[in-house]
Structure formats: C-alpha cells, structure tokens
C-alpha cells in the first residue's frame, strides 16, 4: 500500500491537495483537501446589497463574472425584482462569452498535457498530420504549413533544453498513447487557442465595459445605455462588432475544440470506464429568454443514482425543492460546527486542526442535496439535457457520439458518467453555447430594433428581513449565492460554488464527495508519476480560488508529489 499526496493539483490556480492510497495498481481511498481558508462571506456582511456584486466578483480572479451575476440575481430574487429583457440578453451574452473562454482554456491550457505528450512532436510527419486533421474537420488552422511551423517551435523548445513550464509534464508515461501526429494537431490548437481567448475577452469587454471585472451590472438589470442614434452607447455598430467576434469564435469551438475532444475520446476509450464517482447530478436552468425568466435555453434538473430515466427537471429559479434541499455539512471541514447548515443560516467561522484522515481535513464545506453528495458541471448539464429530451443537447451529443464511433467505441449517454465523459461533455456544452451565443445576439438585436431600450428596473428595499438565492450554471457547474437582507444591508451571505460541490469532503454520514469517490479504482501505473489521478481530478476543471481563499501566500510551489 502506497500513500500519494499531490499538492497542489491544479496546473495554475488554486490550492487543492489530493491524497490517495494505492494498492495493486489502483486507488483504494482518496481525500480531497483545500489548503487555503475561505473568508469571502464575512467581507459581505453589513454591506449594501446593491454593491455586493462588485466585491463578489473579486472572490476569484478567473471566474469574476459568474459571481457578479449570481450576486445580483440573489438580491433580485430576494426583492422579487424582474429585470428587462435587454438586461437578460446582455447578461446571457457575457455569460456565454466567459464560458466559452473558460472551457477552451481548460481543455487546451489546463488539461491537454495530461493526454498530449509534446516530446513526441519532433517525430511527427506534418503532411500526415494535416491529412488526418483535414479528414475530420474543415478548420483552416490545420494546414501542413501551420503544423510544420508549430513542429519547428516545439523542436526549438526541446532543443534548448529549457522546458520551463513544460518541464513538469509526465512525458513518456506509459498512459500517454497518442501518435506523434495527433500530439502535433492538438498542440497546434493549444497555441491557436490563445487567439480565441482574446476574442472571448473582447465580447465580455464590449458588453461589460471592462474585463476582467465587468462594470455594467446593477441590481435590477444592466447599466448599458441603448440608443441606436448615439455613437457613445450600444448601437448597431457595436452590435455588429459583437456579431463578428462571435462568428470568428464559433469555427474554432466547433471545428477545432469539439473535434479534438472527440478525437481524444476515441483514442482513450478506457477512460469511459474510470472516474464515475458520485452519480447524482445537479444543474440549474440558465440563459433565460424572457424578462420574467420563465423559459431557459439551458435546461436544469436533478438525476439521482446515475438513473437518467429518473430526471426531475428544474423549470426555473423559483423551484422550491432545490431551495429546501441544499445544505452545507461542516463535519470534516475546518469550520466550527458539525452537521449540515441551510445556506441562509450558514456560518463561516474557521476552526483549524491538522489534516485528520477521519476528522477535519479541508477548508471546503460539504454541500449536500437532500443529504446526498452531487456532481455539478458540464456533465450534469449534458446528462440532464439529454435525459429530458432537450433538442440542442441531443444534437451535439449525438454528433459527438457519431464522430467517436467512426474509429472508437460506440457510446451511449450512460458512458458519459466517467472521466472522459466530463471532458467530452464540456466540449458538447461549448458547441451548444456557440450556437446559443448567436441566438441571444439575435434576441437582443431584435428586441432593440422593436424599440425597447430599457435595461434597468430600480430596486426597492423593504425594512423587514428578506431572503434570496441567485442561481447560475457557471462553467464549472451550479453556482448559488444565498443572501439574507435586513433593513437594506446583507445580514448573511453564503456562496455555494461548483468546486465546493465537486471537491466536497466526506459528510457526517461518511459519504465522500465527487472527487474523492471518482478516484476509487482509478488506475495508477507508477505511484511516483500519478498521471492517471491528475486526469480524473482535472476532468472536473478544479478551481479552488473561489472554493476557498488564501491565508498564506508565501509559497511559489510547483506541483509536488510525495509518496509516503
């Protein structure tokens, strides 16, 4: 029995530690621990709810907009305040731009190198690589010339002996199985992705006034002025720029990213058998298409025990069961208290002990739904959408299945409940979002052309206590901000974030969270190079920056693996 500690596990952001016990080449026990304290909520107490979002979007440097959005939605929910249709569409376009950016960065820059071995690229034949890529996609960045140029850059990098940030990869690991040509194609897109990140930032910047940290939100709508006759406001010129940016991004999402994810899935079919973990899934509806938020373009729902037939759809944000079902368990987290707390009554008082296998061992609370751990993220979106017959989800999921079956396994939605399923679901969701981005651009443009220029309904704060919850289906999954407002100030604020659901520790009944249970039976060929553990954990797109925050910033630590 070997015990492996991987700390930190995220490539860039965050402070996640994973401990696994390995025996006979696979994981027997796992613990997910966040090593930094989270004190976000305490900062918001006693503040004016109209400015809460400005602070909330500083929770995390990467997912800024999502916290801003959840915060205004929470206050609007507490006040039962409807926002104008234009405000819904503008928010939706920001959310879509941000999500596309985030998913592209995750696939290429934060996780591709778990599967792509760049040290084989010098052996690739660029002509053959170009013909493979041309066979599956019409993406213009797959030309032989382009691939040769990338190969030369990699040759230069490897020849210099200064691998820099690429020196931490598990190069030559037996679990790396792509051909040199496939590695070249994926790494070429890795570099091209940088350009499309910029486009997504521009979309968010044009609408949000600034990125990161958008400036255009308000409790009650958005602060974008709309006047087709003014040069200084949202006008046809600016709408045209937005449309062009979206049209430039879509081919990369649909012809590079989506296709690459399908190629990866076809090349590593065994990863549809590992990493299932907690098979309870939660997604909330998002991208409302009307002012009252009664209809949504992304469906929400709950699936228990991996039984897709049992899906319960969540129609809208007023859904009573979810409000009653969510609680955060503190038993194994470094906060004072035991058992579960409803978020409106939640507390965040630090109570640090050491890492105790059977006691408290993380700064992350354990969110539960009717007492059960839940998995959130793109996989939950796709499973809920597929199970409830959502046409756009089915269109892209079926397209992925048909691509993969061409030279890989024949898949069913059930197979998505796995490590590779999470990668694939994120790509399917991105393809859906790239369709929806243009649809919501059209909704906004049509509504403005109809003569509607309203973007804001002013809030009124009652003197008595009100409670609200703001829901958002963020790139990493269901995000909810729970607020209590008394006499016009926050008297409590709790953010239940996607990574808290997924990185959750055990609860008072000893049930492990999704990361922990997904690692059980995960293969580990070489305990000193636990690449397979990283694959499963990275499939969740972990970001601990908002799940917990920093108390001590003294360490510039490169991922460290300890075998005890």
């Amino acid at each position, binding site marked *: 029995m070997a015990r492996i500690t991987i700390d930190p596990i995220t490539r860039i952001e965050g402070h996640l530690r994973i401990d696994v016990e390995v025996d006979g080449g696979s994981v027997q026990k796992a613990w997910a621990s966040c090593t930094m304290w989270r004190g*976000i909520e305490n900062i918001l107490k006693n503040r004016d709810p109209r400015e809460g979002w400005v602070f909330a979007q500083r929770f995390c440097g990467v997912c800024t907009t999502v916290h801003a959005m959840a915060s205004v939605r929470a206050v609007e929910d507490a006040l039962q305040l409807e926002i104008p249709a234009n405000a819904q569409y503008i928010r939706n376009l920001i959310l879509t731009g941000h999500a596309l950016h985030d998913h592209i960065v995750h696939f290429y820059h934060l996780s591709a190198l778990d599967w792509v071995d760049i040290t084989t690229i010098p052996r690739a034949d660029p002509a053959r690589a170009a013909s493979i890529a041309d066979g599956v996609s019409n993406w213009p960045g797959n030309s032989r010339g382009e691939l040769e140029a990338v190969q030369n850059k990699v040759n230069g990098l490897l020849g210099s002996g200064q691998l820099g940030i690429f020196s931490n990869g598990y190069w030559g690991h037996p679990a790396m199985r792509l051909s040199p040509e496939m590695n070249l194609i994926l790494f070429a897109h890795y570099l091209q992705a940088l350009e499309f990140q910029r486009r997504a930032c521009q979309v968010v910047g044009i609408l949000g006034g600034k990125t990161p940290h958008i400036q255009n939100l308000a409790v009650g709508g958005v602060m974008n002025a709309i006047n087709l006759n003014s040069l200084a406001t949202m006008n046809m010129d600016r709408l045209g720029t937005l449309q062009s940016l979206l049209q430039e991004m879509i081919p990369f999402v649909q012809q590079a990213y989506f296709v690459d994810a399908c190629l990866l899935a076809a090349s590593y079919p065994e990863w549809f058998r590992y990493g299932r973990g907690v098979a309870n899934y939660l997604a909330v509806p998002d991208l409302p298409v009307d002012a009252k938020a009664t209809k949504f373009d992304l469906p929400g729902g709950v699936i228990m025990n991996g039984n897709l037939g049992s899906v319960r759809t969540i129609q809208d944000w007023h859904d009573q069961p979810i409000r009653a079902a969510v609680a955060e368990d503190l038993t194994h987290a470094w906060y004072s208290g035991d058992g579960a707390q409803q978020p409106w009554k939640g507390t965040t008082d630090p109570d640090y002990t050491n890492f105790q296998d059977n006691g408290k061992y993380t700064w992350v609370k354990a969110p539960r739904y009717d007492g059960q751990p839940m998995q959130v993220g793109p996989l939950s979106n796709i499973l809920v959408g597929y199970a409830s017959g959502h046409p756009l989800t089915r269109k892209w999921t079926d397209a992925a299945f048909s691509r993969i079956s061409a030279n890989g396994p024949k898949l069913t939605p059930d197979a998505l409940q796995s490590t590779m399923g999470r990668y694939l679901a994120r790509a399917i969701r991105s393809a859906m979002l790239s369709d929806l981005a243009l649809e919501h651009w059209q909704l906004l443009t049509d509504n403005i052309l109809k003569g509607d220029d309203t973007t804001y309904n002013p809030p009124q704060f009652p003197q008595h206590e009100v409670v609200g919850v703001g829901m958002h289906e963020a790139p990493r999954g269901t995000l909810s901000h729970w607020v209590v407002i008394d006499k016009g100030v926050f008297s409590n604020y709790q953010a239940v974030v996607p990574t808290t659901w997924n990185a959750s520790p055990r609860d008072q009944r000893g049930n492990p969270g999704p990361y922990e249970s997904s690692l059980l039976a995960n293969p580990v060929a070489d305990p000193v190079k636990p690449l397979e553990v990283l694959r499963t954990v990275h499939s969740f797109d972990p970001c601990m920056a908002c799940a917990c925050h920093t108390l001590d910033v003294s360490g510039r630590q490169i991922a460290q693996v300890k075998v005890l």
Partner: protein
Amino acid sequence: MNTSSDPSRLQGDFRLELNAFQHETMLPPPKRIRVIGLGNVLMGDDGFGPLTVERFHCKYECGLNVEVIDLGTPGLDLAPYLHGTDLVVIADAVHSLEKPGALCIYCEDDLITQGAQLRLTAHDPGLVESLAHLRLAGEIPSELIIVGVVPESCEFGKPISPAVFSASSIAVEKIAGLLVERSVSCFRRSAALPPNLWWLLDHRSKSLATWFTGFTS
C-alpha cells in the same frame, strides 16, 4: 493611342504616387503598451497592483496606445492581455528579503533566471505560464517590467498597510518615469482625477476607512 489621356490610367498613376508619398512620410505604428495592476483587492497588501494603476491613471494621462488596467488575479487568463504587446509594465506584490513597503523593479529575464527567488504573490504562476505560452505562439511582449512591492500582510478582508500605500505613490512616479524614458507619451494631468478606491471605503460612511489617515492622491 496616347495612354496618358486615359483617365483611369491617370488615376492609377496618381494613386501609386500618393502611396509612395504616404509610405515615405508615414510614422511607425504606435507601440502597444499596457500598464497592468495584478493582485486581489480583498487581500490587504495584495491589492498594491490595482491601487497603483488606479492612482497612476488619475495622475497621468497617456496616449491612446497605452492601456492602464486592473486585471485582478487572472492566472492563465493573463495571456490575452499580454498578447502581441510591445511594452508591459506590471505592478504587483512580490516576495523578497527586503523590508515591507520596499519597491523592487524586475525585467522579464529576472523572472525566468531568478524564478526560484523572485516569488510574486499567489497568482504568479499565471504570469510565468502566460509568458511561456506567448513565447511559443510568437506573441510575447517585447519588453516586460515588474514594479513590485514587498507586502507586509496579505490577509483576507484586511486593509492595505500604510507602508505599502505610500510605496504605491512612489511606484506611480516610477511607472511614469519608465514610460517617459521609452518615449511613450505620458503627461501629468493639470488636475488629478479623484481615484476610485472603492475597496478601501468604509461601507457605512463611504469615506476612506478610519484606519488610514493622511490620504492624498
């Protein structure tokens, strides 16, 4: 046939000549410059970067080719903001053996060669990784300068320390000097704009929190 009487031909000659004239007299394209603040404003002295760029923007006016921006703690999402730029000046908190409040100026080489010693705050891996990606993509900034400060404390929900707050006003002058030395248009405003330091405001009185006195922009 006398071709010079062909009006379309005449127009073509004129265009060629005009193009040549424009080419000879054309100024090189303006350099793309970014002054970036990094750090989390909710974490005490980690907010040095955002504070410094906000004060810089309020005191100095730059050409349209200079963008002054607070990027928070973007991690790898820093890359799009460095992509294809000529000069980048980053204000950030850094770890060093110097005393809290000390200003330390680094160039990109320091970041690579002294990576182990030069530890920026929690978000630094994003800077190193972003630069590595951009180098491979051929879009790395031509010059990168870090204006760092040694923090006293970066605790969540804590205010900025007086030492780091005063260091930021020196950093503002340092940034202006770095730009002027490189012939970047950067002028002191005749009347300074009031800086928007929303994260330092007391949430009841809406004025700068009482722990800090003697504030000047």
